[in-house]
């Protein structure tokens, strides 16, 4: 049965729009990426929303906005539940990208299209996310159990089986991610169908090795087989090849020059991708060069990003891996580069500054703030490292041509700023908050199960989310641990309970394994039901985690302290901890699962009301999040003046190394907009650090892959046309069809069925396999016999076996027999025997043939170009054979044509044999 494949761009045809494509394999629908741009305009997602219910799986290639930006919205607001597949870094860094974008957006506007809950739901808490390693084969659709049988029998009895096989989309779908370069974890997706065909989704790959990452090598992986369809982008189709070293030097020179002139350099970067490459470059440079300035990375999420990147060495470039193996050089432990998370911290650095700051679009984030501060001064420099999306501030700066004589660029910018609420506004807000809490307490507690109640966790500070993310990223450093443990003890506990099931499922942990199998000696704290005091228990009796935070506080206030020898096995609070701390306690050893993850008890989330007496203050704080909030003990016990937001412990004593997130308190804020006029006098430079293959290399790369169909998307019309034309030209001989589908235009391909047969041992041994380039080739003639073949793995169903064809009339004289066999072969459907020549691109030269002939004992020389004369025999029987190599006619100039002339002699046949061997003739 043939397989139908439909490829439809939902977005991402031109260079500006984010990437999102639909790939349908029979009835199975795959969404390839789901990008969004910084406008976060839901209208742009209409095409995706229309197909949303049909989507069976989502494959993500890169972690940036343009590749997965719409995910939180689709999952959180549109109910996308299909399994999502990506590498681990794409998931984690993708979350950071979304986080940073959201924070930037939220800081300057009342942004409500989606919120951090949606980000959490889409990424961290998403139980249907499958993290794959590179080269790990993942079966999306299992092949039909009897595929071999179906392919095999073929007779009338085989028809039902064949029908069953067809019912399974593509005869089974297996996906594999391969490194794409460019971003950590960035993937080229290879989708293998059970019918033996392959589809490849390769966008934004980098064929060159960088500091951070290895180059992509999907061309080598696909060297043997032609994919039936390859989707590629044409963003860089018109970009010239550049010299990487020169680019680096010029980039660094520009920085040095500015700094030496007492100017500051602003380099707007993304949140979690290319920034790492730039960071490595800058740190390396500033460690060597004597420049009187310190480079700084400024981004709200950067610490988490780096923590995570450090534990994902498997995905990084060879040099980093080797440096770690040999010298234990932990990647991203910068020598010169400083990492800060808030603009305010920049003041600590004296003199000129070199700052990598987030949001390359300059539409938001610290980079925009810095631009406003610095752009007016001519001694400063703004260096862009990627092309800006049209309509953004960055684009306005990049496209401005100062030499045009229009003078300096004048911009009127709308700046947004969040101001804390004060006075009456605050009181109002608090009142509303309390009302909402009561509402929840009355209805929420009994209403539904865990998840709906979890949703209000929007009260989780970004801090706690980041901390949780960091934990998931398995941060190993003591600093981070101190920050998290010291400051965010309470909500950490709750959060890790929430998240650990997701980890368990997403990772390799099997669900019925104990979550903590080995640290049995860590005791557990339980609130005694009668006294309300905290007691230690060694058995798993109560799910005490959620109560621990509140309980701890009481324990402390009653002056109990803690007995180090008794309780604290496996956990040591920092010496300067201001309040009691308890280990991150584990849940009961076995948890139940449902489709949302671990089943949580309702009681854990029952919200205490204000009338609860002693616990009132704590209750109020915990209101929305169900006890997940951290509470500043001293203040809150007094009267709860800290506000319902649960201060993130801004002054937390343990938080000296804290992430920004811990410090951004969630106190109620309002948005204040202002407009400013900015006259740009700073120098503006552009260096391409996008990390994409240039046009020419991409074409060469794809020409090596030589897919049967090629869909060129994501590029300007001119770029797509240029790339399509170049590839049409290079791939003529393979008969490659090159398409440039427009938005919504479906590209449909019907992939022919294929059959599987086994070679009988006799036939297999009689084959004279010859080497042709990378392949072994042989002419095969076989008669199909109903097979019962032993040992072919999976199904055990009979595979037809090919046995040698026996000429019926063997006793004819030689010539007759030859003629008879020849006749036989010409009668067959496959046509006559054939001549093959090695792979296109492989060198076919007479020089090589000459060497081979010499090895076989024949002298030869070149009487003229393209002609090889072979001397055979001696004395009177001496003769000359002429071998010429060249195209026959101009029409098929890609078909190599060899001819051999000479008198009939034994040597003729010997020479011919040498030629056959050299050119893989069979």
């Amino acid at each position, binding site marked *: 049965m043939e397989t139908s494949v439909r490829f439809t761009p939902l977005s991402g045809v031109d260079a500006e729009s984010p990437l999102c494509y639909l790939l349908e394999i029979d009835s199975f629908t795959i969404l390839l990426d789901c990008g969004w741009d910084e406008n976060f305009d839901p209208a742009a997602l209409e095409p995706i929303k229309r197909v949303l219910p049909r989507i069976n799986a989502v494959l993500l290639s890169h972690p940036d906005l343009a590749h997965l930006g719409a995910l939180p919205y689709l999952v959180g607001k549109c109910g996308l539940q299909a399994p999502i597949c990506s590498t681990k870094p794409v998931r984690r860094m993708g979350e950071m990208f979304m986080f940073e974008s959201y924070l930037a957006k939220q800081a300057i506007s009342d942004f409500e299209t989606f919120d951090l809950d949606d980000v959490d739901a889409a990424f961290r808490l998403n139980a249907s996310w499958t993290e794959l390693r590179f080269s790990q084969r993942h079966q999306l659709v299992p092949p039909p159990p009897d595929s071999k049988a179906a392919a095999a029998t073929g007779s009338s009895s085989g028809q039902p089986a064949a029908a069953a096989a067809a019912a399974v989309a593509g005869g089974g779908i297996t996906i594999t991610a391969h490194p794409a370069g460019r971003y950590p974890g960035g993937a080229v997706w290879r989708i293998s169908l059970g019918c033996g065909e392959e589809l490849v989704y390769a966008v934004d790959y980098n064929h060159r090795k960088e500091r951070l990452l290895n180059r992509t090598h999907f061309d080598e992986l696909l*060297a043997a087989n032609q994919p039936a369809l390859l989707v590629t982008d044409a963003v860089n189709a018109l970009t010239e090849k550049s010299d990487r070293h020169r680019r680096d030097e010029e980039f660094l020179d520009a920085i040095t020059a500015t700094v030496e002139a007492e100017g500051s350099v602003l380099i707007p970067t993304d949140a979690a991708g290319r920034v790492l490459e730039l960071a490595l470059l800058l740190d390396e440079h500033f460690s060597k060069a004597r420049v009187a300035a310190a480079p700084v990375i400024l981004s709200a999420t950067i610490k988490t990003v780096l923590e995570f990147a450090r534990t994902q*060495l*498997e995905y990084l470039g060879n040099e980093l891996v080797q440096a770690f193996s040999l010298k234990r050089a932990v990647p991203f432990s910068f020598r010169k580069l400083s990492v800060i998370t808030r603009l305010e911290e920049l003041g600590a650095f004296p003199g000129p500054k070199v700052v990598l700051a987030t949001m390359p679009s300059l539409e938001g984030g610290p980079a925009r703030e810095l631009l406003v501060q610095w752009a007016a001064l001519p001694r400063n420099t703004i260096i862009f490292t990627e092309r800006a999306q049209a309509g953004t501030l960055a684009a306005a700066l990049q496209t401005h041509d100062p030499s045009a004589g229009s003078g300096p660029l004048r911009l009127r910018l709308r700046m947004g700023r969040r101001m804390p609420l004060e006075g009456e506004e605050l009181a109002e807000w608090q009142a509303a908050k309390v009302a909402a809490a009561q509402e929840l307490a009355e209805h929420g507690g009994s209403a539904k199960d865990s998840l709906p109640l979890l949703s209000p966790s929007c009260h989780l500070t970004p801090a706690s989310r980041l901390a949780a993310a960091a934990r998931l990223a*398995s*941060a190993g450093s003591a600093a981070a641990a101190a920050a998290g443990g010291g400051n965010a003890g309470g909500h950490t506990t709750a959060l*890790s309970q929430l998240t650990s099931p997701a980890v368990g499922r997403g990772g390799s942990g099997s669900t019925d394994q104990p979550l903590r199998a080995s640290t049995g000696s860590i005791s557990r704290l339980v609130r005694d039901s009668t006294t309300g005091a905290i007691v230690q228990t060694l058995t798993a009796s109560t799910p005490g985690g959620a109560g621990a935070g509140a309980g701890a506080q009481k324990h402390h206030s009653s002056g109990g302290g803690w007995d180090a020898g008794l309780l604290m096995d496996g956990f040591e609070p920092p010496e300067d901890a201001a309040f009691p701390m308890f280990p991150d306690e584990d849940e009961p050893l076995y948890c139940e699962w449902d489709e949302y993850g671990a089943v949580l008890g309702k009681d854990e989330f029952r919200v205490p009301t204000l009338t609860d007496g002693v616990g009132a203050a704590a209750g109020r704080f915990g209101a929305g999040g169900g006890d997940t909030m951290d509470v500043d003990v001293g203040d809150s016990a007094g009267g709860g003046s800290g506000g319902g937001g649960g201060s993130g412990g801004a002054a937390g004593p343990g938080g000296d190394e804290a992430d920004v997130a811990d410090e951004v308190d969630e106190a109620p804020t309002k948005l204040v907009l202002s407009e400013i006029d900015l006259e740009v006098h700073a120098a503006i430079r552009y260096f391409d650090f996008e990390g994409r293959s240039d046009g020419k290399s991409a074409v060469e790369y794809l020409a090596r892959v030589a897919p049967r169909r090629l869909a060129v998307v994501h590029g300007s019309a001119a770029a797509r046309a240029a790339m399509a034309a170049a590839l049409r030209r290079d791939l003529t001989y393979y008969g490659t069809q090159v398409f440039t589908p427009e938005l919504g235009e479906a590209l449909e391909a019907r992939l022919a069925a*294929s059959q599987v047969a086994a070679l009988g041992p006799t036939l297999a041994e009689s084959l004279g396999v010859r080497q042709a380039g990378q392949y072994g080739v042989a002419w095969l003639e076989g*008669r199909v016999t109903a097979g019962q073949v032993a040992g072919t793995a999976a199904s055990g169903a009979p595979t037809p076996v090919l046995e040698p064809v026996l000429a019926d009339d063997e006793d004819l004289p030689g010539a007759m027999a030859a003629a008879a066999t020849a006749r036989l072969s010409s009668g067959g459907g496959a046509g006559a025997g054939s001549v093959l020549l090695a792979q296109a691109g492989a060198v076919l030269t007479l020089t090589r043939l000459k060497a081979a002939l010499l090895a076989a004992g024949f002298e030869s020389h070149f009487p003229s170009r393209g002609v090889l004369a072979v001397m055979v025999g001696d004395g009177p029987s001496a003769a000359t054979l002429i071998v010429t190599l060249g195209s026959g006619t101009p029409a098929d100039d890609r078909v190599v044509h*060899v001819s051999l002339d000479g008198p009939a002699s034994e040597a003729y046949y010997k020479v011919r044999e040498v030629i056959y061997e050299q050119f893989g003739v069979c």
Partner: protein
Amino acid sequence: MAAKRKLAEEVAVEGGELDTSNHAHVIPLGAGSEVGRSCIILKYQDKTVMFDCGIHPAYKGMDSLPLLDDIDIATVDVALITHFHLDHCAAVPYLLRKTRFKGRIFMTHPTKAIYYSLLRNLAKGAKHSSEEALFNEEDLDASMEQIEVVDFYQTIEVAGMQITPYRAGHVIGAAMFLVEVAGLRCLYTGDYSRLPDRHLPGADTPPVTPHIVIVESTYGTSRHLPRQQREQLLLDTIRTTLNRGGRVLMPIVALGRAQELLLLLDEYWEAHKSELSGIPIYQASSMMSKALGVYQTYVESLNEDIKKVFHERNPFKFRHVQTLKNPAHFIADYSGPCVIMATPSGLQSGASRDFFEAWCEDARNTCIICDFAVQGTLAKEILGGPSSITTREGRRVPLRIAVHNISFSAHADFDQTSGFLDTVKPPHVVLVHGEYGEMRKLAKALKDGAKAAGLAREVYTPVLQQTVAIEHQPDRSVRLQGRLGEKPLRSSDVVRGVLVRQAGGFGQQLLHPDDLPRYTKLLKGRITQRQAISVDVPFSVIRLALEVMFEGVEGAGTLPVTSVQGAGGKGGEVLAVTVGETVEVRYVAADDTSGTVAHVVLEWEGGRHGDMVADAVIAVVLQAVGEPVEATNAESAMIRARAAGDEAAEAAAELQLIAALLRSQYGTAVVDESGGSISLTVDGVSALVDYRAGKVVCEDVGLQARIAKSLERLAVAIRPVGVDRLQE
């Protein structure tokens, strides 16, 4: 079953007799009925895989190497190293630098990182010793360049084999390798443990059924105590010793179990601070701090549990453990109770031996063997309970120290191994990495278990160098694609096409020649062949002969002989014909001005079909032209005789034919029918051709060669060119 039983017997056969095309060969070059120097060879088809390459802890220098000379190392396609313990990886620098190994070599990321630290230590140590080292630091650095890394669950393709590492538990980064060669799946477990421990997950169960499982048998049929009991026992033993003022020595491998035990002790000390805080725990290895980074960075290799602890603090930063910089000073100075972990685990040498010799005469002290004690080491010896031992200086000293064996080594015990095999259900199990007796006991137990469970299972227990041959038919399946795959195959259909085999691999496609560029990177090209044969008969004669041959017989052999348009000579005479639309035969008349002699030129497109027809045409042309009448007569006589099956007459006719042909070349030729020889006289030199023996006797060497050559060529002409030979 009968066949299988036979196979089991073949195990005893010393290797090499069965070819590898349908037998997989498993050859232990090390770890065959022994523990140490793991190195197992798997051969199947033309592929060779080496699993592990370690040294034997009980031997020194070259003796500790696996028996690498037993196979041709240059044929090894890939070496797969399971984990960083010396008995699994320490021969790698030797393998890469001092043998003819040309293959690729793989480890997991953590294995590679720790491999370097460990072997560097070894190389440094060896520098100060008198024996010849197996490798130096330079070799080690070079090996780091060559070793490639692979992550768990990645499926990589090497030389057409598919290799997937799975988690093996045991130590960080330890892998089991599943190798698939031409449909044969073989799983090598290395050292594995299915039990999750404090920092590692248990071994994976591969999702597919391997045909062969090569599994360690270290613990044979013994069973580990449940972990709680073992831990309790250990802690009790330590407490007892400390209480009586003694010291505890735990000889241990620097990385792996040491971490697990330190986690345990540290936790215990922390829990009993009040009583134990005065008693130090020492570890006398610098490796541990070096390894710390590896544990942090490759946190993905650890279990979920410890990953969570990492959020709080670094669990490998021990609170109660100190590092001993100088064991010698310590032995001299320190007298109080303490716990010491020192390497190596076998007490062969090094710090653990120093401590042992210093403390073994004091009955208050305790030595706890936590790792597996390898045969030939002191650790194994003291477990036997001798009353005295010999120190390295050769003194005989009484052994009063209490010796305990509490196994914490993360090897599978009997329950784990049999459970694993019952789940994975391989039909063939090869036991390695176990002492002779243990291995056989395990084999028996596994066989019995399989019988009880109704599973088909053969268990092999090879000794060193012994080949286990396991029959397996290779997967010879071929995928018919393109126009050949359009229709389902029906019985007795004939399919023809080009078989394309992937580079070095086993994937095969069958394609119509015209589909080649669509499914492979092959282009279809052409070879035009032109052969000239001089003739001295009119073309009409040749044409007639061709027509008689190719159109004269009804049926399958008929090929049309048609005139080529526009090739007519003067008077409408046809001077070119095409046979079977494949071979064009063109007549070129003699031209005295250019010195050209009359000849025909055959032109055809090279390839199986064209070559075949061309051979037939050449045979006919040669027959028709240039032959004297007598030759023609002789030939028809020969064909008649052949048809009649009269061999004598055929031979006689053939001789006559040869004589006639020689006569045309050399003049007089006299046939001696009875002797089967022909006498020639050329320019006064006589020569005798013994046709039956194919010999030429002649005084003139040059002439002899010429005649011999002629004979050869005549043979070609008479018996049409061997089709088969040319087609190969």
